[in-house]
């Protein structure tokens, strides 16, 4: 867990409204675990006031600028432009100064290498699944179901394919892959590979549907959630979700930033899981 003042190495649009940003981040190759995230400070001046949370897409090493210098460790994030902060982010360039707090949170449990894995990613929810797949492919069979509204929302297929992950694409409008929801693909795959465990990240309605499917089949499920966050370190208690033991009399809240963002499905109270990823908007 580091708090770096650092710089951007690159920032490119990879699909309409989706950007991939590489940020100089020493030690992250060692520190970062699949499913963890960073709190990203867009600029020193206001707005935005608060940092924005983003999943770590991958880590890596880049060639130094000059022989004799150490290699540059970096992370990459992939973000969708949705509001005031990401609008500013898309304008950032190589060399711009930013601040990075992380890696934060509890990542995925890699599970039993023997078991088959099905990863389910909706839109930008793909991001934290890449490092997960990276760690898994050596020992496990990994299938990735990618869903999106249109083909613009389907990103980084190449990257996953290169890892040796079998990818299945579906879009709501049929503009790429199968027409329909990613959950219908999931049902088919689970029928075929009933022993697989599932790892999901995406919009709340998708997560909800995935949970229902897995619950009826007793399929082990890990989900990565989003929540409005102020601190990212467990201090503000702004990002909580209701835990499985939650009752009105004996409420139990879990911090998405610290006890999550990845939860085992059984840790959560699904009957009450609120839509938390609603953006806060209008804050510029």
């Amino acid at each position, binding site marked *: 867990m580091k708090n770096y003042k650092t710089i951007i190495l690159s920032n490119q649009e990879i699909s309409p409204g989706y950007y991939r940003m590489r940020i100089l981040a020493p030690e992250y190759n060692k520190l970062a675990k699949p499913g963890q995230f960073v709190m990203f400070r867009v600029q020193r001046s206001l707005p935005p006031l*608060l940092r924005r949370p983003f999943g770590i897409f991958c880590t890596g090493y880049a060639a130094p600028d000059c022989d004799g210098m150490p290699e540059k460790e970096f992370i990459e994030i992939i973000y969708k432009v949705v509001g005031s902060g990401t609008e500013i982010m898309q304008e950032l360039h190589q060399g711009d100064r930013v601040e990075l707090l992380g890696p934060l949170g509890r990542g995925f449990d890699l599970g039993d290498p023997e078991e088959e894995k099905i990863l389910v990613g909706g839109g930008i929810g793909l991001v934290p699944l890449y490092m997960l797949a990276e760690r898994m492919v050596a020992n496990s069979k990994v299938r990735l179901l990618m869903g999106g509204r249109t083909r613009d929302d389907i990103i980084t297929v190449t990257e996953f394919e290169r890892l040796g992950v079998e990818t299945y694409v579906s879009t709501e409008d049929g503009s790429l892959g199968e027409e329909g929801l990613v959950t219908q693909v999931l049902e088919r795959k689970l029928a075929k590979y009933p022993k697989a465990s599932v790892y999901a990240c995406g919009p709340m309605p998708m997560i909800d549907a995935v949970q229902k499917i897995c619950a009826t089949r007793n399929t082990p499920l890990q989900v990565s959630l989003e929540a409005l966050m102020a*601190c990212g370190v467990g201090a503000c208690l702004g990002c*909580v979700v209701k835990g499985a033991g939650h009752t009105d009399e004996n409420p139990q809240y879990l911090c998405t930033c610290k006890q999550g963002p990845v939860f085992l499905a059984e840790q959560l109270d699904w009957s009450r899981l609120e839509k938390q990823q609603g953006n806060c*908007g209008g*804050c510029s």
Partner: protein
Amino acid sequence: MSELRGTAVKLAHPKLAVEVAGLKFKNPVMPASGTFGYGEEYAPYLDLNKLGAIVTKGLSLNPKAGNATPRICETVSGMLNAIGLQNIGIDAFIEHKIPFLAQYNSPVIVNFFGNTLEEYVEVATRLEDVPGVAGLEMNISCPNVKHGGIVFGTEASAAHEVVSQVRKKTQKPLIVKLTPNVTDIRVTAKAVEDAGADAISLINTLTGMAVDVKTRKPRLANTIGGLSGPAIRPIAVRLVHQVVQAVEVPVIGIGGISRAIDALEFLIVGAKAVQVGTANFVDPNVMETIIDGLEEFCQNEGIEDINELIGTLEV
């Protein structure tokens, strides 16, 4: 000129220590309650020994679950929160958090509240003999919970009563934290001073609200929340200025501080110390930066002891 400042005039180490209600702080900078967890959350980013004091999340007699979500929302240069005073309760705090905090030499100030007068008294009583608790900060001002103190904080007589009762049960330095959501804060300030407060801290958040125009729902599940951050600083400076004029006891300034220059405004109007809240979320290291900035300011201005600066506003 600038060379002169750089060498001859520059003081090696201006004194930053201040004393509030018998509490000795290495410097006037400490976290604001509820923005620094129980201290341990920020320990990886900041040397807690560098802080003037450590102020905990608000604690109550029993654990408290807090409000439904969403609980936070960014606003222009500020944020709204309606956490609802979620906390682990005073006993769990004493058992699990005090040992961690005891490792550090910065005084620990426990922020607390009650739903009733009796609860306030009970929490203070339980803390009385706990070693490692240097002082108490009594929150009579949280705007989020119906019975979370708003009644006490906005009515001078109620404030006087609850502080008097707590005072009887504690020998520890007692700081009372005021709400800004009143017509004349000098009235409540005087009431709590009369009732035996050793110091006054302010401001807690201003009540505010934001609406999602697409869904037509409030952005907070609780509809109304507390506004904090840089946006509120001018209001906080004004209130601290007024309270400093009105009371004898020392005042701790809070509200929108994120830079040394912000902290200086409060010190100049007469606050003996300051608390940093929302800015911790933005930069976990911000208090160190502020402390360094205060030192540098004193060096540049030829101030040997920061106490010389406190209350030097020229009106």
